[in-house]
Each structure stands twice: as structure tokens, then as C-alpha cells.
């Protein structure tokens, strides 16, 4: 383990930022935090979470896939992946870091592999930051995620005016080596105490002990046509906010844009809550909001775990609890389904 006095953190950012693009959570003009490119003057936010998750770095809002230039019968194709350079992300929380594995399972560990996503993952160095004051809407522990010991290439803790770093991967070790001049070797006593306090705070949060054992394929098939889905989804606006802030939602649409001097084929976030989701083929096969709503939660709690050894496609970050315009979220769905009897009386 290495340490750095907290008041030298800006110097660390300056050193790292001089070589590669560095992104840290910073406060924006509305008072909330977003991952921002570091430059002189940008300060690390004291907020617990950013509004949008860290998936934006690997699965951005929009991403050019191919650029075509057509000149008579000549077609030139450009690959935008070559333009990407190495970058560093600092301050990712344990929940977001855990979501990377969930998305990797789909985009990297299957054939064919999503080379755009993989390219971004390979160019990144992720430095996670442990939480100290989780809020009521957090429930990462429910899925076995330890907010006091986040993963990533390098784990960091801020405790008593000191920042501690610990490398977890080879990339992490290289990162530490690059900033070695600023760091001092230290033991982990400052970290261990903080971890104990954080873990005890987490165990008192309201949703970390929800019972999710009921969410098996067989049980959920019995409830598939239950009226509760209609009740839960009735006032859903279908806006897609939940899918955009969720770290594990990963659907996209592919579109072409005619710039007037060539075509850009790009992909952009899509939401299964939209009526024209997957419309490039025919149309969204789920004709009503109830079906789309049900699909999203079944995917997170049942379908994804069935294909990935029981790992749920949710990391308990609580963003859906905070961002939904009508305050519907996965916790309410879990609670309601738990209260719904499997057999009709």
C-alpha cells in the first residue's frame, strides 16, 4: 500500500493529467457531480455518486462506428477506434466498478466480442475510491459488493487527510510506478479502521437485506401474468431515465447520419422502455408499457442471472431510486413481488 497527503491530491492530478486525459467526479453548475475531464481548477467532488455512472467511459452516449466517404465510385472507410488514446478515470465507486464486470460478460466474454467496448476498456486505467458515507438509497451489499473495498486497477481510500493506494492489476502497478515520486510506502492501518466503520454503516442501510431468493426462473414464470406488473408500470412514463443512469444497462441503437460530406455510422444509447426500441428490424415486440417494464426487471433479476451463473444485473447503486421522475425503482419491484403470493388463492 502507498499513501499521499490529501492536500497533494491536486498535484497528483496535475502529474497524471499532464500525460494522459484524466477524468474525476466534479461538481457541475446544478450542484450535482459528473465525471469531468480534469484541468487546472477542477476539484474532486465530495458527493457520493455521480448522476451518470462510469459506464459512459466504455459505452458512451454516442460512438462513431465507421465513417464513410463516398466519391463517385470510390468509398473510403475510416475506423474511429484508432483515434482513442490511453486515459485514466479516478474516483469510481465500488458499485460502478462491479458493473464493469457485468457488462464485460456480455460485450467481451462472448463471441463475437464488441471491439469498440473492448478497445475502450483496454485503453483505460480505473482507480476506484472507497465509500465512507453511504446513503439510504444504496444497497450494493445485497449483491455481495463491498463498498469499502472497491476493485479496479487501483483501489484508493481517503482517510484522515491521507489518500491510500493499492494496485490490483498489472495496469495498476504501472500506474503506481508512474507516480512513485509522489507516494510513500505505508501500512494499511488507516484503511482498515475506515473499512470497519463503513461496513457497519452499510449493514444498517434499509435495503441491504432484501430477500431476492424468490427471483428464480420458475417462480417468476408463475408471476409472469400477474396483475402486479400492470399496477407497478401503470404510471411509468417510458422516458428511459432509469436505463441511462443505470451502470448495467447496455442496449444501443445503430444509426446512420448523412453529414453532407460522407456518412457517419454511429451507435447511441437506446432504452427498452421506448416504444421504438429495436425498431431497426420491425418494431418493439412489446406493445405496451407493462410489457417493457416487466421485461426490464425480469432481465435484471432473472434472465441475465440465468445466463451468467446467478449474478444479478444490478449493483445496488441506487441511481434509479434517485432519478426516476415518478419514483419507481427496482427496490419497489422487488418488495412488491416478494409480497405477491406465487399461487393464486
Amino acid at each position: 500500500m502507498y499513501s499521499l497527503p490529501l492536500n497533494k491530491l491536486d498535484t497528483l492530478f496535475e502529474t497524471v493529467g499532464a500525460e494522459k486525459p484524466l477524468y474525476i467526479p466534479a461538481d457541475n453548475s446544478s450542484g450535482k457531480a459528473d465525471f469531468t475531464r480534469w484541468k487546472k481548477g477542477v476539484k474532486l467532488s465530495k458527493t457520493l455518486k455521480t448522476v451518470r455512472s462510469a459506464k459512459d467511459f466504455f459505452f458512451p452516449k454516442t460512438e462513431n462506428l465507421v465513417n464513410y466517404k463516398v466519391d463517385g465510385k470510390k468509398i473510403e472507410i475510416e475506423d474511429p477506434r484508432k483515434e482513442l488514446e490511453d486515459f485514466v478515470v479516478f474516483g469510481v465507486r465500488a458499485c460502478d466498478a462491479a458493473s464493469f464486470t457485468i457488462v464485460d460478460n456480455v460485450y467481451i466474454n462472448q463471441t463475437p466480442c464488441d471491439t469498440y467496448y473492448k478497445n475502450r476498456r483496454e485503453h483505460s486505467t480505473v482507480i476506484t475510491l472507497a465509500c465512507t458515507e453511504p446513503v439510504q438509497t444504496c444497497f450494493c451489499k445485497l449483491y455481495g459488493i463491498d463498498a469499502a473495498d472497491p476493485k479496479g486497477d487501483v483501489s484508493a481510500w481517503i482517510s484522515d487527510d491521507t489518500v491510500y493506494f493499492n494496485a490490483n492489476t498489472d495496469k495498476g502497478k504501472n500506474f503506481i510506478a508512474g507516480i512513485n515520486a509522489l507516494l510513500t510506502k505505508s501500512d494499511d492501518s488507516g484503511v482498515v479502521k475506515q473499512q470497519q466503520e463503513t461496513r457497519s454503516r452499510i449493514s444498517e442501510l434499509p435495503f441491504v437485506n432484501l430477500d431476492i431468493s424468490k427471483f428464480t426462473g420458475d417462480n417468476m414464470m408463475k408471476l409472469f401474468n400477474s396483475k402486479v406488473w400492470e399496477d407497478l408500470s401503470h404510471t411509468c412514463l417510458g422516458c428511459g431515465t432509469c436505463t441511462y443512469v443505470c451502470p448495467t444497462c447496455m442496449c444501443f441503437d445503430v444509426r446512420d447520419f448523412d453529414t453532407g460530406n460522407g456518412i457517419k455510422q454511429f451507435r447511441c444509447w437506446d432504452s427498452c422502455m421506448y416504444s421504438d426500441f429495436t425498431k431497426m428490424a420491425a418494431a418493439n415486440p412489446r406493445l405496451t408499457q407493462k410489457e417493457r417494464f416487466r421485461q426490464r426487471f425480469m432481465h435484471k433479476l432473472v434472465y441475465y442471472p440465468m445466463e451468467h451463473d446467478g449474478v444479478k444485473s444490478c449493483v445496488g447503486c441506487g441511481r434509479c431510486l434517485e432519478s426516476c421522475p415518478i419514483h419507481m425503482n427496482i427496490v419497489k419491484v422487488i418488495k412488491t413481488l416478494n409480497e405477491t403470493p406465487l399461487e393464486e388463492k
Partner: protein
Amino acid sequence: MSEPVKDKNWKPRIVAFCCNWCSYAGADLAGNNRLEYPATVKIIRIPCSCRLNPLFILRAFQRGADGVILCGCHPGDCHYTSGNYFARRRMTLLFSMLNFLGVEKARTRVEWCSAAEGVRFAQIMNDFVAQVTSLGENKRLEDVRCKPAK
């Protein structure tokens, strides 16, 4: 943000939406009389000034226009009786909104020009081109993807 362009010969690209019955005929008359105005003014004929959807103006700016002007019949003389009255309200509000967002007011204009006013049509275009030239290229409503690669 709006700086005059370095090249003295640069002329801004203007899109002129002209209503078929009055201003387009006015443009024809200007042409017949060989009255000059810059060739960077592109005229798009619409049946009535009321046809102009604010989306068209934004689309014009997106695709590289530096200024957009709507020409229609004089209020009271609309071929379809009241189209230009609606257009007048619409454009006033739209320009006010664009101004509110910081887009230069001088990049947009509405002029009423009848079919007999060929001279006036050329004058309007020359005046508008001069006005937009002093503002420089459109940077605030541009879509960088539509810019040709240098």
C-alpha cells in the same frame, strides 16, 4: 465568438425561403433585370411563408448556413389570406428564443417583398449578406459533424 472572417472575399452562405406567390416572383424579376446580389444566397421556394417550420431554420444552420431569411407577401396581401400573419407571430417568437439562447439575432430575418419589387429583393439580399458578413461564420448553431474535413 462572432468575429469577422479574415478573408475579405468570404461571403456567408444564406438560405432564403421565398414564398411562391410574392417573393419568389420578386426574385425572378430581380433576375430578369440582371440586378446583382451574391451567389451564396440559395433560394428555396415554399408555397407560403406560413409553410416555414422552425425545424427548417435549424436544419439550415446545421447544414452550413450562416444566415437564414424568410421572404413572404406583405401582411394583408397573402395569397392564402392569412398565412403570413401566422408566420409573423411564429418567427417573432422563434427569433426571440434564439436570441435568448445567445444565437446572434442578426443571422435571421423576415422581410416582406412583393412580386413587383425586384429592386427591393436584390437590396434586401445585399443588405442581409453584408450584415451576416460582419458577424462571421455561424459557430453557435453549427453541427461539427456536417463540416467538411479540412
